[in-house]
């Protein structure tokens, strides 16, 4: 049994290797027979080991390293929430990155080195997150070269200063505009659109919808306490100011606790026709459901974490969400376009994880992988894979997300490098499939309505620091 399993794993790896190796010319290796895939993989492994140094055009020995990088491996760390409130999402994001490295490693890795993930669980608790950071950033053999995912604004804020001291690169899994703070430095390599800009784009989109119908937009903003809520709220308030929209109800940080009667009452009575939420999925469902039940009609949207297709399209509210909800986001949903990146991602999951539920957030993990690879390859090309060298390399690269999201670079001022594009999705309850698998044709029920797009107010706005 053990042998069989090993063989299966080996073959799977081989398939992906060939799939990715030839993906530019051929659309995957699904048609190839298993035996040929195996031999090809073996052959490729051999060539990799011999050819890698030659490809890098300089012997591995000449690359300066300190912690987490050896002659044959690069360790990247993940400080992820795998048992806390965001566990289901984060687990899928980490899965996305895991599959990405499986593909990359099968293709010979980075600079002839295999990428090894060190995954630690924070449970979304700050204390545990800090403890994990200290483990990952240890200045010894146990440390990692960089942190390829750090879940959550709170934990990222908590370790930002240490990361600067340790000069270690951290990719936060958090879209708060906080990482624009010059004090935080280049170590926190923010990814994608921030909540603030997302709110501005989203409200512009909703306002256009309402105006097209001949109404005057009246905005209600709902946010929860905390940095996420504050950032989303700040963007929404800014948008209202710039677009000159009346804010009829502003619940800044007021959505808290288990009973939201107060918020629903005020929302319904406010007469708003645009609602922007910066909430958790549970809070969104409660407020949305109760407001709709009381006959409240408006165009709703909110920052990406407000929505969860399982909770929202799988419950009784599915039709209402279909009718009133526009989902905002930073990445293309599963099979949402036919870009190169999406094809790679879908192919890899179809091959390597055929039984996994499909998910829109695999793309996020995949994009983290792309970021890390680009940065590390630049560092290798610079001949400096020390932690500081990796941080320096991150300022020189432009990451091509191959159509999964807007490309990004971190050079220059924040205003120059900030990502201004976001997406708007249409929620489709009928397309939603309760238990889709990645090898099937199911859907999470989200389709791109518009995007990537930059609203006028965002295009003109000068971002010189965090919105909050």
């Amino acid at each position, binding site marked *: 049994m053990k042998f069989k399993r090993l063989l299966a794993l080996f073959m799977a790896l081989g398939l992906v290797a060939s799939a990715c190796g030839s993906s530019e010319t051929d659309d995957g290796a699904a048609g190839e027979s298993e035996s040929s895939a195996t031999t090809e993989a073996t052959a490729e492994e051999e060539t990799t080991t011999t050819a890698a140094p030659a490809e890098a055009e300089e012997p591995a020995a000449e690359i300066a390293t300190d912690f987490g990088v050896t002659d044959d491996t690069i360790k990247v760390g993940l400080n992820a929430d795998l048992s806390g409130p965001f566990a289901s999402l984060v687990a899928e994001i980490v899965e996305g990155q895991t599959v990405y490295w499986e593909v990359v490693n099968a293709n010979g890795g980075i600079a002839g080195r295999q990428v090894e993930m060190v995954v630690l669980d924070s449970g979304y608790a700050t204390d545990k997150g800090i403890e994990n950071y200290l483990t990952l950033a240890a200045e010894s053999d146990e440390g990692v070269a960089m942190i390829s995912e750090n879940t959550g604004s709170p934990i990222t804020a908590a370790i930002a200063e240490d990361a600067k001291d340790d000069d270690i690169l951290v990719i936060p899994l958090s879209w708060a505009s906080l990482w624009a703070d010059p004090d935080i430095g280049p170590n926190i390599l923010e990814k994608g659109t921030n909540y603030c800009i997302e709110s501005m784009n989203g409200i512009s989109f909703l306002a256009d919808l309402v105006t097209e119908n001949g109404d005057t937009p009246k905005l209600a903003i709902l946010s929860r306490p905390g940095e996420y809520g504050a950032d989303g709220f700040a963007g929404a308030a800014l948008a209202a100011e710039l677009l000159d929209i009346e804010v009829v109800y502003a619940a800044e940080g007021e959505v808290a606790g288990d009973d939201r009667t107060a918020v629903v009452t005020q929302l319904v009575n*406010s007469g708003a026709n645009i609602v922007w939420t910066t909430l958790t999925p*549970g809070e969104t469902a409660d407020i949305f459901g109760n407001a709709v039940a009381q006959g409240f009609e408006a165009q709703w949207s909110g920052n990406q974490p407000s929505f969860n297709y399982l909770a929202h399209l799988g419950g009784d509210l599915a039709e209402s969400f279909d009718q009133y909800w526009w989902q905002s986001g930073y990445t293309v949903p599963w099979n949402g376009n036919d870009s190169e990146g999406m094809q790679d991602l879908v192919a890899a999951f179809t091959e390597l994880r055929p039984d996994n539920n499909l998910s829109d957030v695999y793309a996020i993990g995949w994009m983290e992988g792309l970021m890390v690879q680009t940065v590390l390859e630049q560092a290798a090309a610079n001949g400096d894979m020390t932690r500081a060298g990796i941080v320096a390399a991150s300022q020189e690269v432009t990451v091509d997300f191959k159509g999964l999201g807007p490309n990004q670079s971190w050079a220059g001022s924040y205003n120059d490098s900030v990502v201004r594009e976001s997406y708007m999705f249409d929620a489709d309850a009928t397309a939603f499939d309760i*238990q889709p698998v990645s090898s099937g044709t199911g859907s999470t029920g989200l389709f791109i309505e518009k995007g990537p797009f930059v609203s006028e107010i965002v295009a003109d706005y000068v971002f010189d620091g965090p919105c909050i």
Partner: protein
Amino acid sequence: MIDVLLLAQESTGFFPTFLQTLIKGLALGSIYAVMGIGFVIVFKGTQVLNFAAGGIAMAGALFMSILVNDAGLPFLPFSNPLAPEIGTTPSIPRWLINLVLALIIAAILGMVLERIAIRPMIGQPLFSMAVITLGIETALGPFNRDATSLTARSLQIPWGLEQWEFLGAGIPKSYVGAMVAAVLCFLSINLFFRSRFGVAMRAVAFDQEAAQAQGINVGRVFSIAWGLGAALVAVGAIFYGMGPFPPQGTVSQEIHPVLAFRVLPVIILGGLDSIPGALYGGLLIASAEVFAGQYLAQWTSVLGAGYSTIVPYIVMLIVLLVRPYGLFGSEEIRRV
């Protein structure tokens, strides 16, 4: 801000708002009461304060969701023959049959937990027993979380979000359903306590050893108390899953796990050992919570966001300062 508040008072009539709030309070109160009775029965039968109720309740709701979604039964080679067809909402009778099935499974879970973790502890201090259930709660949590993380856990409520119009107020069918469920539970528990088992349970609650000596099978009473308790909290969780309650027709990873903790003030107020107390306590606490949420909304900036969540605890503290054994609990005479 001020403009908004004025608007809030004008746009809806006073009476419909009041009626709506009252119904919501009663519905939430019914759920608190049913879960409260679940706590009380376990306490009466086994002298255990069941902190694991939350985990058991959510597991019960999960069983329900598995049964009505016909996604096949986990770890079993067959699927549920009574389940509705995939993608359709079940008829009410079929849904109710599945509900009963789910409650039976929840009761079995309760009995199994009692047999492995509570039975060996008979005669130990109350605190140790309560902490055992804290351990169970901790251990059940990840399973619940894991089960809800991958697929939508719809409860397939036949009446969905439909509501009746009554005197200008919208009255959701789910609210009425919760009230009916509470009344049925309360009546059947009262009947139960008049039956032979009920008498046996009261005897055990009074004195375990004496009851044993009288030929009462104490172990069976323990089992039944836990089975009933588990089924009752599961009823609460399932009906709380219906919209327009927050989970909106699903088993919620965010909301369900903390539901049972919100019932604690209820049983403290009613007294740990009083079934009518749980009923009155549930209605009182829920009304306080809902009315505070509705009518103090304009003071949110003073009371703090989410103030209605702690209203039950404040009510509880005030009551306990006056009556340390709750409103209905029996005061223990200090023996020397």
